[in-house]
């Protein structure tokens, strides 16, 4: 008898409750983003695709000091230095293996010249492994954002704690 009452209670109280839950969600706005057509705005400090920056006169900021490669926990950065006509150091080869990169941003922190930083792009899919090896040409493109908030924070941090060379 108790079981029967419980069963009746389930049918007339518990089951409608369950139905109401799903019906409630039916009328709510879905959380799914219509992804390839609409993109989610990334947070300002999101770490995505790498960029190499230039000075205003167009020369590359990177001097191929190797600090980023040393800081890289995933060992994703490879570089070969060369000398310009003016006798300045610059990178002949600068490659980042995206399949190794973990997007930690340590290279950005380590860089004394503020040459490398991570942008907002996150769509890296490709159909061949060699397309994941990014060279200078890929990264020296003008990046969409003029002001990188991370750089601002980094400058403030360095004012207090000094540059990586100074601490070393």
């Amino acid at each position: 008898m108790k079981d029967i009452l419980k069963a009746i209670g389930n049918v007339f109280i518990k089951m409608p409750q369950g139905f109401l839950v799903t019906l409630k969600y039916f009328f709510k706005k879905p959380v799914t983003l219509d992804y390839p057509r609409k993109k989610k705005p990334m947070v300002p400090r999101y770490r995505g695709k790498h960029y190499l920056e230039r000075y205003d006169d167009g020369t590359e900021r990177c001097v191929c000091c190797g600090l980023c490669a040393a800081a890289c926990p995933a060992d994703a950065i490879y570089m070969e230095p060369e000398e310009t006509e003016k006798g300045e150091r610059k990178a002949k080869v600068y490659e980042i293996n995206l399949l190794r990169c973990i997007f930690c941003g340590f290279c950005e922190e380590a860089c004394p010249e503020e040459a490398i930083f991570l942008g907002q792009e996150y769509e890296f899919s490709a159909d061949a492994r060699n397309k994941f090896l990014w060279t200078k040409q890929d990264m020296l493109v003008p990046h969409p954002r003029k002001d990188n908030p991370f750089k601002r924070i980094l400058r403030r941090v360095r004012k207090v704690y000094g540059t990586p060379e100074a601490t070393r």
Partner: protein
Amino acid sequence: MLEMILISSAKVIAVILAVLTGCAYATYMERKVVAYMQHRIGPSYAGPYGLLQPLADAVKLAFKEDIVPDGVERITYAIAPIASFVPAMLIFAVVPFSSDFTFFGYDIPGVISDLNIGVLYVLAMTSLGIYGIVLAGWSSPSKYSLMGGIRSSAQMISYEISYGLSIVGILIIGNSLSLTDIVSQQASESWLFFGNWYIVKQPLGFLLYLVCAIAETNRAPFDLPEAESELVGGYHTEYSSMRFSMFFIAEYAYMIGVATVGTTLFLGGWNGPFLPPIVWFVIKVFMFMFFYIWLRATFPRFRYDQLMQFGWKVLFPLALLNTMGTAAWVVLFG
């Protein structure tokens, strides 16, 4: 005579087309409704709001390679999809979808065939539908298919009894086996237009019909024969291309079939105020289908022993109780 044949053929073709389109858009509706209930958006790429998705699916299935695995029982393997598809479509032959109407001067009855044992015919067709599933499970050289087939046959035998008994209450009150008679008995002129519907007189019968119909059509939460999380695809695991799509269409045609029969038996068929009968009919069938999908989005699948216990220890006694109660009521007060 010739006119009769032409009118009947036209009706048959119209109903088949309507049912096939209904099946296609039932898949779309199911995907959309379940998606929204799960906070997703569902298919949205093919056409506006994904409205061409069923068409895209059909084209995709039609162009897929028809793979026949090694070691199948060839003849039964080929018969199975047809055996599941044909009875599903045959159900619609006796369902009155509209009142009699006049079309270009011809009086046309709103049903393909007004069989005077319509209810028995529906029961026969739903019970024949199991063969497609069982044969598919048996002829495929796969454990999953066999398990699906065995589960399906046991489940459908168990629930068919309650399914039939849930209707008996109506037959006792209405004193007729013809679906057209049952619909006309539910007509009402008063402002309370649903007062004569059998859902009011037979609430328990309606609940039983609902549950058993879902179990008969192998829908969630009774979808053990094709439980994808444990049996891959169940009985249609080894099917591909058009053969698979025939199973798919058959499943949805069954859903629509039991929805139309349920509408006819319990929800007053095409009866209703203001709107034309066919519109009322479609609205009611649509609500039935929505409930189906709603149920799928709400409840998890039964375990097999729970399914059997529920069928034999709960539904069957309740159906008997409903039948006896109705009979006693009719004898004492009717």
